[in-house]
């Protein structure tokens, strides 16, 4: 009795438990999935003792067809049945040889990459961290050496690149820093006025905005914006150069890669980020002033007077120092992560993300450390 399974496959149940698959037409990606499903179903329903596959009617066979034969052979082996091919033309033989059908008698299960255990994971992470630390130390060394060299030979700095970096990091970031500073001042003044109004202490809104901005928020907000804008740009630029062998090219041309790529960025950031943070402070004070004058009935003169009374020169300079320090962290992390990039396009994305995350983490960490130091010192 012959039954049709699919358009390209029919099955003959021979008395005595034998099965004969007759294939016809094209055994390709379109016909094979249905054949596999139907053939396996019929074999599971009624396990045969001998399976034959007749290919005499096949006009086209490729590796999808070979897959169908392989699946039938596997199913036959599962039910301890023998398997044989019939009606092989020269072409079919050639294709079976090409895909090594006969050598696959017992296929080893596809090896999957096994997930490592907890201990292996911890070990690998530790080694990665140690390697990262080693890389960082080496990087610190090369940057320090480069700085020494630049102090002795200031002309060897690539000033054009430095100016370009200063423009990108500083001037281009000014609008966003100013806007965020202004809004921050506005919000702080507004929120604090709700409380201070109850005590008739409206004037202290000015102190709060000024002190908070100059000592803490100005440097931090500026640093976070610069980390997002420029830290990521440093990392992606250097990572892209790294994976396209540009860094190696510079090195083999005899250039000091640190001086060529890193020094302009670090110096530019060191110079412009403190200035940006001054702008952030000024615009925040302007935001506070707006709330003070429009909502709290303060005069502009009184507000500014209170503002300048509320922080000392030390606060101002310390804020600037922190800003410069954060600038160093951002440029540092950006360049370092860029140099650590290895692999393809994906590596650039990884470097960028890692640069921003590490910079922001280190900025907050160092700010806390400074806060503790100032607590005991001041």
């Amino acid at each position, binding site marked *: 009795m012959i039954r049709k399974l699919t358009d390209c496959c029919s099955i003959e149940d021979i008395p005595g438990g034998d099965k004969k698959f007759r294939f016809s037409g094209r055994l390709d990606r379109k016909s094979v999935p249905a054949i596999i499903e139907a053939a396996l179903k019929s074999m599971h329903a009624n396990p045969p003792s001998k399976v034959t596959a007749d290919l005499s009617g096949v006009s086209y066979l490729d590796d999808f067809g070979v897959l169908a034969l392989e699946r039938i052979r596997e199913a036959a082996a599962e039910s301890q049945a023998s398997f044989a091919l019939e009606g092989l033309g020269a072409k079919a033989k050639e294709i079976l040889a090409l895909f090594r059908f006969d050598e696959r008698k017992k296929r080893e299960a596809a090896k999957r990459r096994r997930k490592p255990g907890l201990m292996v994971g911890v070990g690998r992470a530790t080694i990665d961290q140690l390697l990262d630390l080693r890389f960082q130390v080496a990087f610190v060394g090369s940057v320090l050496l480069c700085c020494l060299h630049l102090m002795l030979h200031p002309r060897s700095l690539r000033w054009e690149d430095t100016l370009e970096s200063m423009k990108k990091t500083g001037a281009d970031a000014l609008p966003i820093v100013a806007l965020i500073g202004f809004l921050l001042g506005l919000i702080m003044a507004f929120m604090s006025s709700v409380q201070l109004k109850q005590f008739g202490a409206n004037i202290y809104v000015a102190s709060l905005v000024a002190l908070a901005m100059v000592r803490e928020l100005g440097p931090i907000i500026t640093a976070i914006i610069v980390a997002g804008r420029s830290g990521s740009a440093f990392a992606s630029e250097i990572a892209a150069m790294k994976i396209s062998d540009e860094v190696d090219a510079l090195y083999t041309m005899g250039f000091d890669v640190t001086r060529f790529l890193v020094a302009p960025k670090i110096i530019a950031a060191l110079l412009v980020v403190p200035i940006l943070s001054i702008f952030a402070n000024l615009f925040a004070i302007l935001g506070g002033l707006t709330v003070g004058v429009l909502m709290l009935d303060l005069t502009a003169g009184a507000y500014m007077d209170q503002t300048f009374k509320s922080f000392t020169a030390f606060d101002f300079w310390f804020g600037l120092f922190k800003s410069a320090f954060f600038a160093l962290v951002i440029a540092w992390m950006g360049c370092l992560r860029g140099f650590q990039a*290895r692999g393809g396009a994906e590596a650039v994305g990884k470097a960028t993300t890692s640069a921003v995350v590490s910079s922001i983490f280190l900025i907050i960490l160092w700010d806390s450390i400074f806060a503790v130091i100032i607590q005991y010192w001041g």
Partner: protein
Amino acid sequence: MSEHTLIKVYNLTAGYGEQAILEKVSFEVYREEIFAILGGSGCGKSTLLKHMTGLIPPISGTVTVCGVDVHQSDQDSYRRFLRNIGILYQSGGLISSMTLAENVALPIKEYTPLKEEEINYLVEMKLEQVDLKGFEHHLPSEISGGMKKRAGLARAMALNPDILFFDEPTAGLDPITSAEIDELIIKINRSLGTTMVIVTHELQSIFRLAKRVIMLDKMVKGIIAEGNPHYLRDHSGNPAVRNFFNRISTSHNATHESRS
């Protein structure tokens, strides 16, 4: 269009923007043949390939593949067309975040209802074909340029398309790897009857592979020769064509001619 014609390029003017690189180019590719597009750098070989696969719209003219106008067809038939072709890009075009096995499995998973185990089996067969057994779990960044091309070929062949397009399959590879890739192309062509369109300027590959070639020229902005490469090398009436096949530089030729 005869029964044997698979790709028909008719009066194609191609270029970027208004600037034409090729003007009024017409030729045909026949079923199951290995067809090569040759020419020096900058003559528009890769541009022509991009037009043949519908990646860039032409300034004028048509490209018909299996009876479908590639540039005029609607979204659905264009997608069907894309499933029937495979393209090997110059640098492999592998997705860098996926392993070789995942790269090859990608189209099979997307376009067939096969189970994962079956797909793994197919991937294994395909990677074995291109001699990359054992590299299934490597990322593209961890293998050499020649291996990337072979893996790219395995992915282009994933669905056993009717036509395979190759953009410089052997450029930048060592002679042995090049020869292996050529062998592979011949083997696939012979056993599966896949039509091959190869863009190249590697003479050895051309002689080894192609039965029919067209040669493009930058100045003419079109085809300057069509036919069997061996015949063109020895009997072409155009000195530029003979020089190309015999690796004679045009400057050398000029001095040679001025002396004589």
